[in-house]
């Protein structure tokens, strides 16, 4: 059986073509344009060498901060979602009443539009009329009522907290599936040997979940680095760029006509992701049957 005849290449052509034209080529073009002074104000393009990259990394403007903010957002939300997701997964995998109700509830935020979640929390966190502060005042904890999204020192933490609220249930669901895939017999054997709950978790659950945990971390990192909707809805980068992440910054640069700057910081992320992306994809596609 001749494989190239039975499985013709043109079966794959449409998908590969559209993906290449609208995803890969703009990325590669972007790297090229990063070496120019492309803007909305001049019809001419000049080659400027590494000037744009130097401008990003020298720290003379805020560009580097948008990148570090994005990385910080990714690290904090990934850590928190993994830790909380694991905690809830362990609690909700076995021996608990109405577990399907709890699981369904916790998973639900991850099917809703991220933008809508952001808008709802913007209302809840409104300092004057929002539910959170109204509630805190009602139970006499007025001191805790903060200007959640307005206070420069609190805003970024608040944005991350909302995102953790949104994403933990999804990570939990993946980890529950991982825990349920561990054969019961291991836990039974450990219980007979007198292992307590903590020991069972440390010596059985955690090692057996390694692959699933690796995948959830990869998914969280990919999500975090590309965050836009959540920040755009909650603060749009404010107050004073305190919560500015890469994609919100690019959007502003686009509307100001600063194309070269926008494409440069996009390309920094693109190159970074292609390099680490290769290892990430290896983790995601590991364990597949190879004939």
């Amino acid at each position, binding site marked *: *059986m001749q494989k190239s005849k039975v499985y013709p290449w043109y079966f794959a052509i*449409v998908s590969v073509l559209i993906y290449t034209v609208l995803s890969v080529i703009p*990325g590669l073009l972007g790297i090229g344009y990063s070496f120019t002074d492309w803007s909305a104000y001049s019809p001419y393009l000049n080659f400027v060498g590494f000037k744009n990259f130097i401008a990003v990394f020298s720290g003379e403007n805020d560009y580097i901060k948008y990148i570090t903010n994005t990385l910080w957002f990714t690290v904090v939300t990934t850590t928190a979602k993994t830790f909380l997701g694991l905690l809830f997964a362990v609690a909700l995998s076995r021996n608990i009443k109405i577990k399907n109700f709890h699981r369904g509830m916790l998973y639900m935020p991850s099917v809703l539009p*991220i933008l809508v979640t952001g808008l709802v929390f913007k209302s809840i966190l*409104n300092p004057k009329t929002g539910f959170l502060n109204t509630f805190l005042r009602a139970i006499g904890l007025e001191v805790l009522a903060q200007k959640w999204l307005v206070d420069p020192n609190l805003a970024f933490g608040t944005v991350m907290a909302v995102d953790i609220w949104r994403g933990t249930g999804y990570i939990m669901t993946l980890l529950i599936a991982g825990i349920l895939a561990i054969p019961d017999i291991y836990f039974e054997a450990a219980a007979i040997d007198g292992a307590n709950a903590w020991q069972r978790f440390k010596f059985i659950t955690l090692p057996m979940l390694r692959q699933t945990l690796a995948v959830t971390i990869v998914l969280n990192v990919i999500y975090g680095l590309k965050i836009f909707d959540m920040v755009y809805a909650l603060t749009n980068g404010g107050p004073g760029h305190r919560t500015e992440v890469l994609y919100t910054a690019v959007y502003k640069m686009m509307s100001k006509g600063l*194309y070269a700057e926008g494409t440069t910081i996009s390309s920094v992320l693109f190159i970074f992701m292609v390099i680490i992306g290769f290892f990430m994809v290896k983790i995601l596609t590991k364990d597949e049957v190879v004939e």
Partner: protein
Amino acid sequence: MVYTSKNKFVQILLKNVLAWFASMLVIIPLLLVILNAFKADGETLNMNLQLPKEWIVSNFSTVIEKGKLMRSFFNSMLYAGAGTLITVFFGAMAAYVFSRRRSKGMGALYMYVVLGMVIPVNYVTLTKTMITLGLTNTSLGIILLYMAMQTPFTVFLIYGFVSKIPVELDEAAIIDGCSPLALYVRIIFPMLKSAVITAGVLCFLNCWNEFMMPLYFLHSSEKWPMTLAIYNFFGQYEMKWNLICSDVILTCAPVLILYLLCQKYIVGGQTAGAVKG
């Protein structure tokens, strides 16, 4: 023995407390949106969990009219529906060839496509590309963009399912005189049904919830999908929580219904990639 059972009791109690605490964190915002959606204008100055004095159902019709939700509902249906159909149709064919060929070249091409799950979009040059192709501010443009964005995961997901169909089946069909196209259409595709539904539901969900592509590429409001429509509604009616909450419910209803109907496929599909064995 007494010690163990007491220990176990504390453990179960802790688990339940934790589970209820976590669920409440989701239930409270949900209730808040539902209750406020039915309140009168004056009642929603402060957001709270009190029941509406009078349940005002007409908030919904007000929002549908003022927010032009019918139009954006059909736009969203078109973008997510057509985007899903072409992504899954062509993605399944591509996944099938990648999975069966397993040559060096095809393996590299598969990696190239799957890398798309990771690489970020450069919106600046994408805008230029879209203008060059004459696709800005068109429905076709958004649909093709959705296809480009969703193809990597779709191919990845279906690839795994194709590997589970024995190759002997193909061999038997070819010996019996089946053409390559007939082999795919009559034998392979029907066996991929559950994979295709899973990929389709996830793709639809992602397209429905997407916000950035319309924000960048759809300038006329009559082309806006529901996400973009609610964002602008929010800007216009800020502080009218009752109307905003009704709009939130209407925007989320389609995905929530899909979630309730297809929970098995959604959760199954999202875990399929992560958990193997």
